[in-house]
């Protein structure tokens, strides 16, 4: 899932989150497949961003999970004997993995 500016939205993308007005009224539900007409309509409604499934904009320049985890380990290297810090590091590791799994959806 990725939040993208509306200008980058194209036909065939699928909403991963509903689009709602500030007052909470849902304009388009999760799972809606976008087409030219819907995109135009959103532009008319002053919507600037949409969250879509997959990662249509990121991908090629994105770091692999292995690289992200290695960088995380390096950042934590001075505190590797501190139990609390290691616990926090594990939470972040879990978060990185979860995010990557979700991105595949």
């Amino acid at each position: 899932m990725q939040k993208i500016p509306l200008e980058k939205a194209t036909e065939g993308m699928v909403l991963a989150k509903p689009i709602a007005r500030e007052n909470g009224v849902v304009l388009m539900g999760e799972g809606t497949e976008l087409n030219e007409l819907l995109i135009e309509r959103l532009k008319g409604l002053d919507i600037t961003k949409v969250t879509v499934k997959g990662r249509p904009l990121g991908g090629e320049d994105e770091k692999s999970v292995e690289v992200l985890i290695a960088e995380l380990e390096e950042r934590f290297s001075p505190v590797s004997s501190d139990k609390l810090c290691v616990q926090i590091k594990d939470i972040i590791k879990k978060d990185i993995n979860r995010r990557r799994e979700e991105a595949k959806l």
Partner: protein
Amino acid sequence: MDHEKEKIRRKIKAIKSLPTLPEVAQKISKMVEDDKTSATELGRIISTDPSISGRVLRLVNSSFYGFPGRISSISSAIILLGFDVVKSLIISVSVFEMMEKGILGLWEHSLGCAIASRFIAKKVQGCDPEEVSVAGLLHDIGKVVVSIQLVEDYEEIKKLIIEKKINISKAEKEVLDLTHEDIGGWLAESWNLPVGLREPISCHHHPQQAQQSKLATAIVHLADFLVRAVGHGYGGDPWVPDLNHKAWECLGLSMQDLEEIISDFCDELESMESEELI
């Protein structure tokens, strides 16, 4: 040795002539203390500085404040956020105009720390999330002063960090016999910032030294750790700082709370990146 001491003394004197706030921020500081000042009046004064008012509006309209795209004037920002928060925001954006010239990535680090502070504050009883987040935004102002006013020393500090693999506070101590906490504390005092901002700035690596704002200081301490931990922005060296266990305990958070904070925090960072605010 005496020669060394003299050198340090001269440096301290150089830093003591701290940067002053832009005129508009000084005017506002005075007006905020006057009960008779109205939001409209204050808004008018702030609007006379287009660069500052533009940045304040950009900040309040970002997801950082949770009013995306809704605030079109400074006076409505004051009504929604209050005098003190707007005053602190003006100080922040003024500082960060300087910051852009200083350390690359420090603005992102500071904004990240502000966001993390707000998420932590929401889970902790007895503190104001808005004020704590401004404290997070300003916690490293001491580093800005070092990088801009003591350019040669800052080069030396950077060299030490790489050669000795020590964190920025230790390197600052070796070169200046002072750290960004000390310098930030002086700056906060000379700008008459409230104690709720002063202590998180002057004690964010030594939260046990905070006297009146223990909670806010502990929050900023943890937020600083978290923003480094997730690798957002650049705080002057590539590692997480030491984590004070007493400060962690005084917040009374569970590991479950922390998981939620980290997840919300990373979501927010992702969405801010796509807004291109940072």
